[in-house]
Structure formats: C-alpha cells, structure tokens
C-alpha cells in the first residue's frame, strides 16, 4: 500500500460526527503529498466556521499520528477550493439518503 492509500485508509476512521460520514467519502481530503521530510495532507470542511472544526481536524491529526514510521504527517486546513456536495462519493450519497 503506498503512502497516499495508507493515509486515506486511516482517514476513513475520521467521521463528521453530525453527518456520520467519514472525511474521505465526504470529499474533504484534497491532497496527500509526500515530501522529503514529511507527508502533507490538505483537507477542508463542509462549511467555513464549521462548529466541529476542532474535532474533525484534531481527529485527522490523531488518526495520522505516527501513521508513517519515519515521517511526520501534517494536516493543513484549506478553504480553497470551497467544498461542494459533488465531491462526495457514492457511498456518502447513499449514507445521506440521496441514492
């Protein structure tokens, strides 16, 4: 399993506690990039000022703690591009009752 896949699998354990859908299926994970001295994960939230900001980002950081033995994983919150529902996976849509 490559690094990006490993990170994604770990992030599938991090849920939006209100929606009950994990952050990967919600389409919140924008980029996973391996750099020389770290792995950088760029992610967003469904809405600016999301009241669960700390819980979700903190959860992502906890889930990725020591995920890669020889490199730290940094989680960066970004707001561009703005999240939109079309980024959700079919699994997320099904879980939210849309299909």
């Amino acid at each position, binding site marked *: 399993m490559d690094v990006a896949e490993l990170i994604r699998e770990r992030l599938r*354990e*991090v849920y939006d*506690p209100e*929606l009950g859908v994990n952050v990967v299926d919600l389409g919140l994970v924008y980029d996973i990039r391996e750099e020389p001295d770290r792995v950088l994960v760029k992610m967003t939230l469904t809405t600016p000022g999301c*009241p669960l900001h700390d819980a979700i980002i903190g*959860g992502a950081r*906890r889930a990725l703690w020591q995920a890669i033995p020889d490199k730290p994983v940094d989680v960066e919150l970004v707001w561009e591009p703005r999240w939109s529902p079309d980024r959700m996976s079919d699994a997320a849509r099904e879980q939210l009752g849309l299909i």
Partner: protein
Amino acid sequence: MSRLPLLFIVTGMIGFALFHAVSLSSLLGWLDDGVRGPEGWFNAHLFVLGWATMLAMGAYYQLISVVLQTKIYSEKLGFLHYATFTVGLFGLLFGFALGKTAMIALFAALAFAGILLFAWNVGATLLGAAKWDAITSSAGMAVLYLVLTGLAGMAMGVNFAAGWWNDLHQRLFGTHIWLGTVGWFGLLITGFSYKMLPMFFLSHGHPTALQKAVFVLWNAAVLAGAAVLLAGGGATPMLVAVALLAAAIAVYNVHILQIRKHRHKKNPGAGIRWSMYGNHAFAAIAAGALIWALVRPPALTETGTLLLAGWLYLPGWVSFMILSYASKIVPFLWWTLKYGQRAGQPGTPLMAGLLDERKANALLAAVAVTFFLPAAGLALDLEAMVAAGGSLHSAVSLAYMALLGLVFTR
C-alpha cells in the same frame, strides 16, 4: 471548548422542567384570570426568561462564534452575565411568588443588569467582527430588542412602585410583550436558522436574498407594533403590524423551503424536521390570524384573543423551535465536551448515538399535538379543556426534556 453555552442551556432545561412541573401542579390555573397578577407574572417570567431566554442565550454564545469564526469578546463577562441574570431571575420569581415588591424591584434590576452584560458582550463581538449579513444583523437586532424589552419591564416596575406614569403603564405592558416576543425571539430564531438549517440539511447553493426581505419585514413589524402599542393606538393601526408580521413569516417559510430544496442530506434529524412543520403551522396560523383581524379588527384588543395569540406564539412557535433545535444543540455540546478529543479514534460514538431519534420524533409529535388542546380550550373558552389539555402537554413536554437530559448520561 467553552462551558459557557452549556451552563446556560442546562439552566434553561431546568427552567423548562420547573415551568411544566408548576403548570401540572396548578393545572394551568394561572392561564386565566391570574395571568395579569403575581401568579401569571411568575409563570410567564419562568417560561420566557427561565426557559426560553436562558437556553437562547446559551445557543447564542455557541452560534455567534460559529457564524463569526471568532471567539466571544469576553468569556469572563459571559460568566458574570450568567451569574447576574440567573440570580436576578430566580430572585425575581421568588419575589413574584411571595408578592414582595422590594424583592421584585431588586432582583428585576439584577436580571436586567445581566441582560445589559449580555448585550455588551455580544455587541462587542459583533462590532469587532464587522461581518454584517442577515444572520449577524438579525442576531444584533434581537439583542437590542431584548434590552428594550427589559427597559419597558423596568419602567413598569418603577411605575408600580412610584406611580410616575400610570397613563403609560398599560401601553408599556403591550410594548414590553411585543418587543420581547416578536423582536427578541423572532429575530433570534429566524437569524440563526439561516446558519443552522443549511448545516443540518447539508444545503448548498441555495439563494439567500429572501433573508434580507425577512429581516426588513420582521423589523418593520416589531417597530410598527411597538410604536402603535406605545402610542396607545387601537386595533386598526395594529393591523398594519400584524400584516407585516404575517408577511415576514410567509416569506421566511418560502426561504426555509428554498434551503430544504437545496439539501444534500435527506434526513436532517427529527428535531429539524419538526422545526419545519412547526414553521409551516405558524405561517398558516399567522395568515389565519390576519384574516380574522381583517374581518374583526376589535379582536386585536380583546383579552381572549391576546391570550390565545400569546399561547400560540410563545409556548407554540418560540418554545417548539427551541425544543426542536435543542435536539441538535444539546447532543452537539455534550459530544464536543466528552468525545471531541477522541475524534479519529476507533469506537468514538457519533452524535446521532447520543439522542434516541425515534423517541425524539414521537415525543416532539406528542408535544406538537397536545399543544393544540389548551389552544382550543382558550379559543372556545373551555377551562376544563385548558386544564386537561395543558396538563397533558406539560407531561409530554417533561418527557421530551427528560430524553434530552439523558444525553448527558451517554
């Protein structure tokens, strides 16, 4: 995470339980001839301040930082507000219960001081953020109307003691009620719903233009009504305020349907679904009230009409909206406090696991249905129906509040 919102919300839940326990024990006897005396003042203020305003203040502290993406101006001021308002309120209630004028005066002043501290805190937060849209404008105006409501109440208290403006007293009473119910609660509920409903429906891309229309119409209704009542105007000028309010409610309902239409989550939860039903029922009732007032304008000044309108608006729309949204607010606050630091770890419960949705749905349905029994009793002037229906309503309301209370055991 701040414990300030939870403090207010738990106290509000206790206020709700106290109100309904007292109502049950008196079989709502106060909601008749006693409504304009100490017994009525006790129950009305326990309900409006001890339950609805208390919980609303907690929700306000929680949501304003979400909306503005900034911390509240001062946590310490928030705790001082809580202490002042709560001590003032319960002293005031004891004063009403015991009929002690000096006690009423002292503790009313303390409760009003609490409201001023709240206004200072949120005012500084809003002005500091300088982010003005329909949500923040509604929130700001709501607090202004709360302060004016308190001021009118204080003026009435002074008049009771000193008799300085007896001619004004009845007019102050009407203005006090209108500003508090339509102004404070109306703008708070509509304003914050523009943030909360899209969150729980996961709505995106919905139009927001109607939010401004609701803001303008609702404020026009508040100001028109307050002006008419303060000037001692009669039923006909009051019709204008009622028509403006009915229009605001209608436009508001169109907007919340726009939010729902753009949803990406089919089921927002029982509480939010019931809030939508409650809003639609409210719009229908407002339209019916306007038609009735147009056909029979003198009804707007009749005691029976006013009592029924007060019941439909306060324990009806205002309280039901707060109960509905509490189904999200309470689990959210508890989950964040208890499990927020465990998010991302396997086995961490979801928010949905904290409140039994099926029971919440059933109990909210029961609260909604039983609410109309005392309403019918008031409309038909049937005391027994008010007593029996009101008692049933109080019983199911207590059951729903107990269900919310169970969240704190998860």
